[in-house]
């Protein structure tokens, strides 16, 4: 197994642990920042299709095992985020450090909106309409702001872990 894969797996496990044990306690306006969604997008942005989807599926399953929402919804969101990340990575968007300053916040906002809507649509597919509650707007807003801030930092972190550089 390559250094890249080992780093990816270990970092993803840490991200799931942080999501479950830290972010659920430190809510912003009552909203949990869904770092695992952003993480799967970044993994897709910087990796190939197969490892990205494997990591996304694993992260989603691990998280869904601890969530009270129908099993599989976060798996679906993580897979979609990773796939979109891979497609955008192939278009050359993975090098955020060398891109225009507005690109990473814009991508972060797009990921937050897209991931939340994917989650809700997945819930609709499994006939759970209760997910469309009044707090959807605040969930999208808080995650959009958080993702806009975190995207570049998390990308740098993943590069540092998988490529061993600072």
């Amino acid at each position, binding site marked *: 197994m390559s250094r890249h894969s080992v780093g990816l797996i270990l970092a993803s496990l840490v991200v799931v642990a942080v*999501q479950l044990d830290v972010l659920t306690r430190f809510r912003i306006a009552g*909203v*949990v920042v869904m770092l695992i969604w952003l993480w799967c997008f970044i993994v897709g942005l910087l990796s190939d299709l197969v490892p990205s989807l494997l990591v996304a599926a694993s992260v989603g399953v691990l*998280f869904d095992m601890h969530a*009270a929402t129908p099993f599989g919804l976060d798996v679906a969101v993580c897979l979609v985020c990773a796939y979109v990340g891979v497609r955008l990575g192939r278009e050359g968007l993975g090098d955020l450090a060398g891109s225009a300053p507005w690109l990473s916040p814009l991508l972060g906002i797009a990921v937050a909106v897209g991931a939340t809507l994917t989650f809700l649509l997945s819930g609709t597919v499994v006939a759970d309409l209760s*997910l469309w509650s*009044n*707090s959807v707007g605040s*969930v999208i807003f808080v995650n959009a702001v958080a993702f806009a801030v975190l995207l570049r930092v998390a990308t740098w972190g993943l590069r540092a872990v998988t490529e061993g550089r600072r």
Partner: protein
Amino acid sequence: MKPFSWTVNAIATPIGHVFAGVVNYSSVVHQNQELETEVGALRTQAGENAAAAQTLAQLETLLHLPFVGTAPTVVAQVVGGATTNFAATMTIDKGAANGVMNGMAVVGNGGLIGSVIQTTPHNAVVRLITDANSAVVVTFGAQSVTTLLSGRGANNALTVSNIPVTASLKVGETLVTSGAAGSELPSDIPVATVKSLAIAPGATSYSATVTPAANLSQTSYVDVVLWEPAA
């Protein structure tokens, strides 16, 4: 002699203090550090005492829940909140090994908090009454009108709809569990208090916005009511 003595003292005493300060500077610094450490320890202890008093108050409240009646209960500590934005749940430190089963009522802080939806041997997940998938059969008034109270997601008020216009419900009135046949919850547990009413002209029913009777955001300890509906 007195004015002279006073003048000498007025001049000599500060000078003496300065010399004493210079000579004893290191011991003063050491003493100051010790005092600061002591103050820090006392502040920590005061904080711990306040936290312990709060815990004690919550546990005492749980000991005197009049609405639980004679049903056996298990005191549990809340060890986690909801992991996602789309479910209002909490995790407690008691599970199947303590007699906790799915569907059991969880009470505390003045009323119904939710019901158990998932158990492991030593933990259980509680769905709060504010969860969008939560529905509790409640009753109110002298005529014991029964209706359904639904959650609308965390941080949102609960709603009661389809209340017949013949039923009189007032703002501030408390809704309690009905305990009707088939209900998973025992009767007479306070669930929510009416906050506002919405009546459309000519309608045959109306709805109410209610707030939970229990303080769901400040809950560290809860009681699981080990009550099962009669078969």
